[in-house]
């Protein structure tokens, strides 16, 4: 079995008004994990610990088999990191940045860099300070992708991009994943982007991992059932039901563990199942987070 691309074991970090609480996450090589959470959930803190920009108070972090922060130099040789708030040197050109990064990474692929320049419609002679936000993100991605890193760590990379730029960027990530040994950790609060490209999803909220699983497992298991409940009927509470909303005879049931048996259980209690809907990742995310907060009494 290969070494995981990312291995977080019970990682904690305490700030005055926020705490990352014993987070454990594993990303196998060749996978794309979407790290999804609301603003302030701890996504960026998690990524900053991974990049050794911030040191954990407790717990173990290994990236591509290297212990973080102790072996960060070796790990960062193989990590490409882009964050929406990362900036390049405004006074220098993209060509200068390409030369600078090339001088550091022997794996720099000139031909691929040229392809990306065309694909992203970037001009190397242009000063970075003159680039639009979208162009800046693409420039940062070019600098990272042309190195062909084994792990891409992307903190809200599509934030603020127009739909076309977002499509170009996401398409490039899919291209990267054609190589089975490359992995991506992709943090976003935009579940549409995450749903589009991720194999695995980790939901994070208020410094805790709420749920982590394959995307398909989430999409298969989470369902919303519309019921017609005759007066006087009391509904059962099968395992996996996260919420039951009632309005007169109508009831809306959300479950994280759908199976035909759940339908049968409601029918047996006297309710009529009118329809069963699949949920979008965004709906699953919200339902998951709200249920977790309720369970914890927050």
């Amino acid at each position, binding site marked *: 079995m290969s070494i995981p691309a990312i291995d977080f074991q019970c990682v904690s970090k305490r700030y005055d008004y926020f705490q990352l609480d014993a987070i454990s996450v594993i990303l196998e090589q060749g996978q794309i994990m979407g790290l999804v959470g609301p603003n302030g959930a701890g996504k960026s803190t998690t990524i900053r610990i991974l990049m050794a*920009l911030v040191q954990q108070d407790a717990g173990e972090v290994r990236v591509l088999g290297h212990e973080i922060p102790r072996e960060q*130099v070796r790990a960062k040789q193989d990590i490409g990191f882009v964050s929406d708030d*990362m900036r*390049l*040197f405004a006074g220098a050109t993209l060509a200068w940045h390409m030369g600078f990064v090339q001088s550091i990474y022997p794996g720099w692929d000139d031909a691929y860099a040229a392809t990306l320049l065309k694909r992203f419609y970037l001009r190397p002679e242009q000063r970075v300070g003159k680039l639009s936000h979208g162009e800046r993100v693409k420039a940062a991605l070019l600098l990272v992708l042309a190195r062909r890193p084994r792990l891409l760590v992307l903190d809200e990379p599509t934030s603020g991009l127009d739909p076309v730029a977002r499509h170009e960027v996401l398409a490039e990530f899919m291209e990267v994943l054609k190589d089975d040994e490359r992995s991506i950790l992709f943090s976003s609060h935009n579940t549409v982007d995450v749903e589009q490209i991720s194999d695995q999803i980790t939901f994070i909220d208020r410094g805790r991992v709420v749920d982590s699983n394959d995307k398909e497992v989430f999409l298969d298991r989470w369902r919303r059932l519309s019921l017609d409940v005759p007066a006087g009927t009391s509904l059962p509470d099968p395992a996996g039901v996260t919420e039951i909303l009632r309005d007169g005879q109508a009831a809306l049931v959300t479950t994280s563990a759908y199976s035909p048996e759940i339908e049968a259980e409601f029918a047996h209690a006297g309710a009529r199942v009118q329809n069963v809907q699949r949920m979008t990742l965004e709906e699953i995310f919200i339902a998951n987070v709200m249920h977790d907060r309720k369970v914890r009494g927050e």
Partner: protein
Amino acid sequence: MSTHTHVSANASTSASMNASMIRRLVTKDLYLYRWFIVGATLAGLASLFVSGLHGMTGLILFMTTIVALGIFIAMYGILVERKEKTLLFVLSLPVTPLQYATAKVFAALIAFLVPVLVLAAAALSYNVAFDPPLNGEIPFTVVTLGLFLANFCFLVALLLVSGAEFWAVAGVVLTNLTVPLFMNVVVGLPGIREYIQGPVAVWSPTIFAILGTEATVAVLSLGIAFYVQSRRTDFI
């Protein structure tokens, strides 16, 4: 034996990787500072020329150039890098925060010292060429340049440690305050006042004591900055 050799080889590879990364970061900073270096050198040479025509005005311009160079390098290289989030880009490269700080200090010192040494050489040549030679001023010029260097090191250290605008402004104000104080107090010190107008450079114990103090401030400031950086857990 073979394990030992393997560990040694790894350590040596790692050390050379670190040194080469520091060298690249220094080169990067020097490229970004290039206009400050050229500008300060030209402005300093122009102020020396002016001092030949209007002594005090030229002297003030000369000192202002050096002080401004120090402020620009420290502010642009350290504070702006942090504020504009280019620090995030640099720290995502295969470098530790301590190596980053080392590169920052080296680059800042080179960017500051190169123009200052060129200007010092020009100023000394000017003193020597004067008829009669103003050699008595040379030790005083050297301790004044030492003050600028100590102030610069203090400012770089302060910004490395704090990275905050408030402390940057406080540091600039504090270091600038030392200049008039220094000029007024040091000129009147025994071991300096009696030789400053003379034709011969006299390196009195007072001069060495001042140089020693300046060196201590510079080394201590940077030493504290490196210590703090090595103990830090959050770098962004």
